[in-house]
């Protein structure tokens, strides 16, 4: 083996070995930071992004009190589920700098495993979903280890390759008995007769996920993630075991993407191989881009814009021809391109800067 490659492999392996030697210091001390976090949460609520997020949430809670229309509920649930998914991508890409284009893998595994446990083992949704998310962590490790030495576009391609592999694996006719082939797993039982129970269950999980993710990125470990993103060499030279922390980021991100996948299965009561499609990874990227990268809470705003505003705006035009149903995706793709070209800080940041000033003005700041 050429020297450079050999050393890379051995680095990764020993980094992984050290990883299992104990929970890292930064993770162990997470709970000590809670009082501080509560304080910064109170401050956050009154920031622009904070109130926008809370507004989106309150709006979502109020809707079922007004109408229980299935269609509207489905839209809102999509928004909730995909906001978790987007936030999990933001943790990995926005905070740690590991841009994954294969995030649908975690989503898909979470969805499939949760569905399988509900259907085959008859476990309650909540536990199946957790098992699904744990499976996504394991997949995060499996993908993380070989992808760790890849950087930038190569990492994006590497992760994308995994989603292609899984898509084809789950599609394959030979494995129909195990993986269900194109039909996937369907006719899953509902969580409850009342639609509203499912809705609030998903809402609560979403809120908890965001609280945990925010605590993580605001804590010591979040600073380490950012250091790796800003300059991996310098992080290494500061004594940070970057291999270990990148793996941790992959696993945390995988967990929450898996949760989102499980909730997705719960909502649609069926899964099929399309959950592995690159389209889902793309959703995550677009939503984060819309809401602002490296913010976590921006994912709520981004998901709201995508699922509630954009998708609904163009739905009536679907009657004119199915091509219009692709409009939200097309428009997001356009937005993404424009954004990458002109505004790497996210489209909301510059565009809403003025509204923010007005908002600060209203609060007398």
């Amino acid at each position, binding site marked *: 083996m050429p*020297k450079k490659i050999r*050393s890379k492999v051995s680095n990764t392996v020993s980094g992984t070995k050290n990883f299992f030697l104990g929970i890292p210091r930064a993770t162990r001390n997470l709970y000590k930071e809670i009082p501080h976090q509560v304080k910064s949460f109170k401050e956050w609520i009154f920031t622009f992004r904070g109130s926008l997020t809370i507004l989106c949430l309150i709006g979502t809670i109020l809707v079922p009190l007004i109408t229980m229309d299935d269609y509207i509920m489905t839209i809102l649930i999509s928004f909730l589920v995909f906001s978790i998914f987007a936030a999990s991508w933001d943790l990995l890409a926005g905070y740690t700098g590991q841009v994954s284009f294969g995030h649908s893998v975690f989503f898909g595994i979470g969805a499939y495993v949760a569905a399988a446990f509900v259907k085959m083992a008859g476990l309650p949704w909540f536990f199946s979903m957790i098992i699904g998310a744990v499976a996504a962590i394991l997949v995060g490790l499996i993908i993380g280890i070989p992808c760790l030495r890849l950087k930038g576009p190569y990492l994006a391609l590497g992760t994308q390759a995994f989603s292609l592999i899984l898509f084809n694996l789950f599609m394959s006719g030979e494995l129909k008995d195990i993986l269900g082939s194109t039909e996937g797993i369907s006719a899953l039982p509902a969580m409850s007769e009342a639609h509203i129970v499912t809705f609030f269950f998903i809402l609560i999980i979403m809120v908890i996920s965001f609280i945990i993710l925010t605590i993580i990125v605001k804590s010591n470990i979040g*600073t380490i993630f950012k250091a790796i993103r800003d300059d991996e060499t*310098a*992080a*290494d*030279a*500061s*004594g940070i075991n970057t291999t270990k922390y990148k793996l941790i980021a992959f696993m945390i991100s995988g967990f929450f993407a898996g949760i989102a996948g499980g909730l997705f299965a719960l909502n649609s009561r069926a899964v099929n191989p399309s959950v592995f499609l690159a389209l889902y990874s793309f959703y995550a990227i677009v939503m984060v881009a819309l809401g602002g990268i490296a913010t976590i809470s921006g994912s709520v705003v981004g998901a709201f814009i995508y699922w509630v505003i954009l998708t609904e705006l163009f739905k009536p035009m679907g009657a004119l021809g199915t091509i219009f149903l692709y409009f939200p995706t097309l428009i997001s793709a356009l937005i993404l391109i424009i954004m990458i070209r002109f505004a790497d800080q996210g489209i909301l940041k510059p565009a809403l800067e003025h509204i923010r000033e007005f908002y600060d003005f209203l609060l007398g700041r």
Partner: protein
Amino acid sequence: MLEIRKIYHYYDKAKALEEINLTVEEGSLDAVIGPNGAGKSTLLRVISRLEEPDRGKVMFMGERIDELEAYQIARKGIAHCPERRKLFYDMSVLENLEMGAYSLKDKKKFHELLNFIFEIFPRLKERKKQRSGTLSGGEQQMLAIGRALMANPKLLLMDEPSLGLAPKVKTKIFEAIEKIKHEGTTTLLVEQDAVLAMAVAENIYVLEEGKIEIRGTKEELEREPRIKKVYLGI
């Protein structure tokens, strides 16, 4: 304290370092000078294991370290202040310094070091909360040095601290380097600007095309005709 024995390094097939032997004694400040592309940065990167040497040994406090990983070397007490600063640009000045102290366990020492850094670089204290990407070049260099010092290193490796700075700022940085030396931190400095380097260093190595061509104390080198002509311009 640091002993480098017969180090060779290649980038693919291009030789960057050839049979490098070098010793840094505890408490001393030594410098490696040489033109652009001589292999100075490579030498430091090999010591802190950001680059794996092809042959040879690196010994630190009697222990072989060339087989460790970068973060382990950092934890042994070698801080690398890299070329072109390489800060955490999206983080504040203070956060950068905190990251520098990542492997430092002692809270009291942390504040001591922070005070020392703010004493030698008052600018950083004023800009504690500022995002490091928005600092001026000189301030960024100060922060890079400060971040390396926050690890409370036994050995400090500094790569071209004067690079791209105005003469006035260079002087400031080198005054700080003198103060660091007075504190007793062993330092290996790499510098293109021979005049500046020779003003602070005790032992000097001249690196040219990957080889150490001349070595000696400051006084010895000041007498070398070739050094005078090429590096000092006298």
